[in-house]
Each structure stands twice: as structure tokens, then as C-alpha cells.
């Protein structure tokens, strides 16, 4: 798999993501600095990692959504390249219009860092096919603004079309997200936004490997 990780000032889980992709795919991902306007040929997966892009002093992800590299990412997504945004990456994809809805401040109004349970709400996407339907996995979250919101029509469409990929399970919704939504895919199914951090639960040293199958699914899609 040829993957790339977007780098921008303020993103801070880039190293975690690079390690995870290298471990799962056996191949180190390329990196894309935010000012680049063209992408390397033949990318299968572009990942926007977590962090606080440009400080997130405006709405989270609002500035990063307008960085030069995002136009190329949007074009790639249009061509069917897989794009995955985790945490701040999810917020950036939403702000860039690649995914619907919005991520608001947690209902607790506090940053929350803890392990939650996720239910695989659709095991039929490019990012979830290595899971069993409705499988419940562990996954850490670490965010201040993960409270997913969408208008009624959008929400109905997401639910109706199977675009909800992951849901907080067993009462562990940490942020007040509507319908316990933790991750969604776009209508074509090649863009995933996910609030939790699967890259921090992929090896024994992390205390589990539950996050691995997300990356393995993306790999399997390519293979």
C-alpha cells in the first residue's frame, strides 16, 4: 500500500500515525507538507492525523481545511483514493466539505482522554471490512471537540445509507455526539472521518491491537 500522511503546523499525532502505517503495512508512508499542491503518483491512502492544526484558535480544522494541500487531497478523494482523517483530521475533512456535519465542543466542555468502546456500525466499508458486523472494540479518544452534529436530513441519510462506520458503544459516548456517532464515511465510501485514535491501539505495548483492523481493512482494499 502506498500511503501518505499530511503534515501541517500544529498537527501532533503525525508521528503516531506514521508509525502505525509503517507497522501495519510494512512500508513507511510518505509525508505531504501542507503547502504542497501536487501529490505523489499512485497513492492508495492519504491520512490526516490528529492535533491542533494552526492552533485551532478558530473552529477546529477551519484553517487547515484551507491549506494548499487540501485541494489536491479533495481531487484525490474525487478520483477514489482513500482518505482518512483522525480526530483533528476528521474536523479538517468536515471543514473542507469532504464529509458532512460538524464537530462541536464536548458536552462536558472539557478535553477528554480515555478509552471508549466502539461498535462497528457498518463492517462493509473500505475501512471496516476486517471487522465483524457490530463487533465492539476498544479505542482511546483524546479531544476537546468531538461532539458530532448534523441536521436531521443529513443524519437520516448517513444512517440510511450506512455511512455511520463507528458508534460509541456501551454507554461510553464521551462527547455527546448525535446517535453516538464516532466515525462516518462519505457517500462514495472512500473518505473516513474518525474521532478516536486507532493508531494508539495497534500493538501489545499499547495494551491491545483493536485499532489495527482499520488499517488492515484499508490495506485489504488495495491488495
Amino acid at each position, binding site marked *: 500500500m502506498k500511503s501518505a500522511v499530511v503534515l501541517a*503546523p*500544529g498537527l*501532533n*499525532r503525525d*508521528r*503516531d500515525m506514521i*508509525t*502505525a502505517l509503517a507497522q501495519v503495512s510494512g512500508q513507511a508512508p510518505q509525508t505531504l507538507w501542507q503547502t504542497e499542491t501536487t501529490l505523489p503518483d499512485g497513492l492508495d491512502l492519504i491520512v490526516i492525523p490528529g*492535533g*491542533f492544526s*494552526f*492552533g*485551532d*484558535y478558530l473552529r477546529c480544522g477551519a484553517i487547515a481545511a484551507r491549506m494548499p494541500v487540501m485541494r489536491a487531497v479533495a481531487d484525490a478523494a474525487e478520483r477514489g483514493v482513500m482518505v482518512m482523517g483522525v480526530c483533528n483530521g476528521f474536523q479538517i475533512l468536515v471543514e473542507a466539505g469532504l464529509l458532512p456535519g460538524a464537530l462541536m465542543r464536548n458536552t462536558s466542555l*472539557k*478535553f*477528554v*482522554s*480515555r478509552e471508549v468502546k466502539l461498535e462497528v456500525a457498518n463492517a462493509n466499508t473500505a475501512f471496516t471490512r476486517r471487522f465483524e458486523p457490530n463487533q465492539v472494540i476498544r479505542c*482511546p479518544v*483524546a479531544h*476537546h471537540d468531538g461532539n458530532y452534529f448534523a441536521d436531521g436530513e443529513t443524519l437520516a441519510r448517513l444512517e440510511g445509507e450506512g455511512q455511520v462506520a463507528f458508534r460509541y458503544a456501551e454507554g461510553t459516548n464521551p462527547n455527546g455526539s448525535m446517535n453516538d456517532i464516532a466515525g462516518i464515511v462519505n457517500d462514495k465510501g472512500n473518505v473516513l472521518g474518525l474521532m478516536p*485514535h486507532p*493508531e*494508539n491501539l495497534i500493538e501489545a*505495548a*499499547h495494551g491491545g491491537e483493536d485499532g489495527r483492523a482499520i488499517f488492515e481493512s484499508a490495506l485489504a482494499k488495495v491488495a
Partner: protein
Amino acid sequence: MRRQNLTLDRMIQNTRPITNELVASHGLKPDEYQRILDLIGREPSFTELGIFSAMWNEHCSYKSSKRWLRTLPTSGPQVIQGPGENAGVVDIGDGDCVVFKMESHNHPSYIEPYQGAATGVGGILRDVFTMGARPIAAMNALRFGAPDHPKTRHLVSGVVAGVGGYGNAFGVPTVGGEVNFDPRYNGNCLVNAFAAGLAKTDAIFYSKAEGVGLPVVYLGAKTGRDGVGGATMASAEFDEKIEEKRPTVQVGDPFTEKCLLEACLELMASGAVIAIQDMGAAGLTCSAVEMGAKGDLGIELDLDKVPVREEAMTAYEMMLSESQERMLMVLRPEQEEEAQAIFRKWGLDFAIVGKTTDDLRFRVMHQGEEVANLPIKQLGDEAPEYDRPLVEPTARAPLAPDDIPQTDVADALLKLLASPDLSSRRWVYEQYDTYIQGNGLQRPGGDAGVVRVEGHAKKALAFSSDVTPRYCEADPFEGGKQAVAECWRNLTATGALPLAATDNLNFGNPEKPEIMGQFAAAVKGIGEACRTLEFPIVSGNVSLYNETNGQAILPTPTIGGVGLLSDWSRMARIGFAAENQPILLVGAPRQWGSHLAQSIYMRDLHGRTDGPPPPVDLAQERKVGDFVRRLIERGLTRSVHDVSDGGLAVALAEMAMASGIGAAVPGLEDIDPVPVFFGEDQNRYLVAMDLDPQDGALEDIWREAEEAGIFAPWIGTTGGSDLKLGHSRRVAVSDLIAAHESWFPSFMENEV
């Protein structure tokens, strides 16, 4: 026209007459001012007075504490850099080293909790990456006033959010820390921030400038008026006018700091950096003087080149600003362009603001005028140093042997687990990112935070921050020893070999002989413990004048320690590992526990704060710790916890709660269970053995223990879902957890 007026305004400011009141308002005593006059042979300009006050205040000059700090052990075969640089550096083998320090941000955090705590975290992270290390772990030791004091909730909420807000955005995991409450912190909370980073031993960067005529480069964020005079403020007592000091608190920008980290590491890798110093307390003044003085060079600064974000800043303001996220460097001139490109990429300011000179003068130019011209070495070296009068603390009489107020063991345990000081800190640490970087092996809630060393299959570092202020109040010498010993013990409990420590000494007004007596005794205790345990102090910080309206805080010498695990697959954790394992109390006295004075049991259940703290036998401490570490290294146990606040009962409950596995510990016949279960005797560890209790292997362990002079009785066995202590009733582990988890959230929701 306007421009002219501004210039005039500045000139007036720099020629402002130096009155006695002006000198006093800079925190300088009349004899200290006389020292300045003698040193420079004339009256200082207003800017020069500001520079002296910045360099000679307690915070920067350590004038009251230096005499005592010199007595601390600071070297050892593992120590690469001891105190005196931005942070200490300790060898961890294979060409790697750990760089760490702890520093207080007490006064700012009381005035403006969010920004005060945030910039405390920012400052300590900068100290670490200034030396070329990428930060891998942070901790924070927080002390607040009584829970029912009207300001406490506001301070807890702001400080915790500030610590998280900065560390989370910067991208460093918070791996541990402390949160305690005591009325003595009502008017003066403590925020002690620790950071550690990893570097290569052949790529450590120092502040010593080398070479004449080289560019002095300003990097990072622009200079504003925030924090002007902050270090001087931190060197004075508080009174009711505290709110007026809000403008002396800086505002943090973790985004800029994260960019500064990446830019600095990139620049260091390029080979362009000769010397680097972060701008912390007293900003531009302190960093420039330090770089020059250490390198036996003069420094000339042109303030017109300093990037500013406010209009019409005076030389005085620029020299004393404590704006955050700024660095000063001496660069190789031939790599200037390369360096500039790196900083532009990260969106940071880059300006050549001066040069090194050979005249040992610190010269500051502004608007074509020389606003300061001072001898650079003397600014630092000739700072006043005091051997302040002190009174030895008086020893407290022990409690009478039959003075044991009674409470049922199970009742007492449940109350203590739900008390302010012993309840779960989940509410706090869930606001800190503990997952980032993906190397965390033990998160907050155990004895120590553990982080694996990137690039090594087996190596990991353990971190712990400790002090028991009520012990220090009752006996500063024993309390100082205990702070070091407990830190050493917590590292050992994971299986780590303790390497070195940093100290953050928080005390009251040193001009009071009884406070100075506390300080001196505590430092003596720390020194003695560090020597016996071969656990040198490699960095640190002193925070004095922690008083409000004449009321001092509890003496609080926080110790932050670092240990090395050679193989983390054999690490021990706090939770019981399995059912049916024999529990040994390694290092116990014959009656398991005996010392009740200064215990949490006495203070929180019986309102008693009389008597001496438990003494620490340092030789025994070391023997017991080394024995426990060997058990872990040999794979004989995966479950170890030191016994500290709350004694044996609380320690057992913590092991049960962390694992969901219960235990039965029958206690000793015909002995009062209160001291057994709640005594706070030192150098004790609970060790659940990975052994079948029936097969005789325990006999071998006991033989080894006996040969080492250690008593390690089998006090109980893991298993079931209840904790059963002595003859008291069984308590379900789920009930322990409910009690333990309840207090903090209810308190913050204003329900208790």
C-alpha cells in the same frame, strides 16, 4: 510628529529618576541597591535597574537558597549534566540520554489559573527541548487549598484545564503527577510542572556562547508587554492586592511552542546552532546574560530589531517582558540563510538582534541610544547571596503507645478512599492526553508513569513525582528524606532502576528564620537520601515567598524522579495480576505497621496532626528496594505497589481496584488492627508473587530476604471480588471503586 513624541516618551522613561520608592518597587533592598552602585560606579538607568531586578530577584538568583543547594549531591556516573543548565541530562545507554527538569509556576497560577498553569507547562517543555531533546513525558504536582475554600474549585478547574490545554496541544503525554488539598494552600496554590525528553548524548545543546562577533538570533513568538516583571512578582509575598498583579501573568500559545520545537530540532540537526537559551523568567535579559556570561563573552543587543507585537514598547518593557515561546541562539553565520528558511517554514519570527563581543559588557541599544551598559559576568555572579538566619525546627514528641483512636477498618478504608487526598484523580488526568506518541506503558493511576524508549525493543523510562507536605511540616528533615525515598520507591515498584531526580522546593518567606530553618532542614534531608540511594539531583527550581498575608504554605519540596527499565516486558504494575497469589509485605516491621502519627488516618478521620512523621531508614530503604526490583527482574512478580498515604489498607485497596481482583488479609492476632492497616511506616512494598503458595518457592524467597535483613511476611492472598481486612467486614471491590471514584467529580460539580 507622533513618532517624535513616542521617542521622547521612551527617553523620559529611561531617564526616570531612581528614587528609593522605585528601587523598593523593583524588589531590591537598600543594601542590594548599594551593591549595584558599587558595582557600576554610577546611578543605573531605569532600564538597568529593571535588568538588575530581573537578575537579582530570588527566582532568578537563588540568593537565599544557593548556600543550601550547594550541599546537594549532583553527580554520578550516569550524570551528563547537573544543575546550572536549562535541564539535567542523564545517560540511559546506547547513545541516548534523558533530559528533565521540574519548575514551579505557583504565583501566576493563583492569579490566573488557566494561563499560569499553561505557561508553566510551556516553560518546562522549552527548557527540555532547548537542550536538543524531544519531550516524551510530562507530569505536574498540584496543591490546592481546602476543598471548602471558595477559591479552590475555580483554581482546580482552571489549573487542570491549563495544564491540559498546553500539553495536549503541544503533543506530550502527561504520565503522572499529584493533586492534594490543604488549607495552608488557600492563598497560594502550587503548580509544579515536570517534563522529560530524549536526546542523543552526542547532540546535546547548551547555553554557553562561543566566538566573538557572531550573530545573536531571536526566534519564536513576538515580544509583548505580558509578564513584564513576572519573576520579580514571583519573589514577593501575596496580599489582598493580588488581583492588581494579573497583568504580570503571561499568556501561552502551545501552537507556537509546537512549531518552535519542530523548528529548533530541525535547526539543531542542521548543525547551525552554537548556543541556545530559551527566554523564560526575565525573558531577554536573563537569556542574553546567561549566554554571554557562561561563554566569557559580552553581548550587544539592538532592541530596534526585536520583533514586537505591541506599539511603542520601551527598552525597559522589552528587556523584562516574559512573552512566551521565544528563544535566543548564537548561530554559525554561514548557515544563517538555512536557519532562516527553517523558521519561515514554521511561520516563526527570526531576527538577528545582536552580536557577541569580547568586552564582557552587556550593552543594550534602543533608538540609537545606549540604554544599558553593564558588566555581564557580575550581573549573574555578583548577585547577592545570603546566609539567612534560621531556627532549627523543633522535634515533635511521639504519640503515647496507647493513643490509638479507633475506627472500624472497613469503615475507615471506605471513608479514606472517598476523601479529598486519597480519592481517584481520574477527573484530573482524563483532561490530559495520556495516549499521544503511542509509547505510554503505564498511565496515571499507578506508582509511576512508564514510557518506552523509541528505537529500543525493551527499554523504558519510569517517572514519578512525590512529596508528603504534612511530614515536611512536622519534621522538615525527615520529610525531605521521605520525599526522595518515596519517589525512589515508586520508580522501583515498576521494576525501574532510579537514575536521578529534579527538585522543586516550594517554601514560604526565607526572611523568616523558621521558614529558612524548614528549608535548610529539608534540603539536608533530601541530600542525605539522595546520597544513600545514589539518586543525584540534576536540575531543579526554588520557589520561595509562597505566603499570603503572612501565612506560609506547608513546606513542599517536590521530587521528580526518573528510572530506567531494561526490559519492560518484565515491568510490574499496581493491579493484582491474578487470583490465588500470595501477597508479601516486603520491608515490613514485625507487626506489619506501627507509625500512626502524621498518618492520613489520624488527620482525616480523627483531626489529629500531632506527633512526628514516620522516620525513613535510608539504608533499609535501599536494601528493600533493591530486593523488590530483583524480584521483578526475575519475573517472580508482575504486581507491586508501595505503601504510602493511608497505609496497608489503602495500598491493598488500590491494588484491588486497579485489577478488579479482591484479596483476603487476615491481620495479626492480638494486635490492634489500626496501626497495622493504617500506619504509614516507610520502605514497605506489597508484592503479589507469581508463585503457587503451596510449592515451597516462597521458602527460597524468604531465605533470600532474611539474608538481606528484610522481613517479608505473607500477609494474604489475592482472589474473589471482595477485600477482607482483619476481622472487619468484607467490602466488594466494586464498592471500593464507587467510593474512590465519587469524590472528585462530585466536588467539582459542587455537590460536596
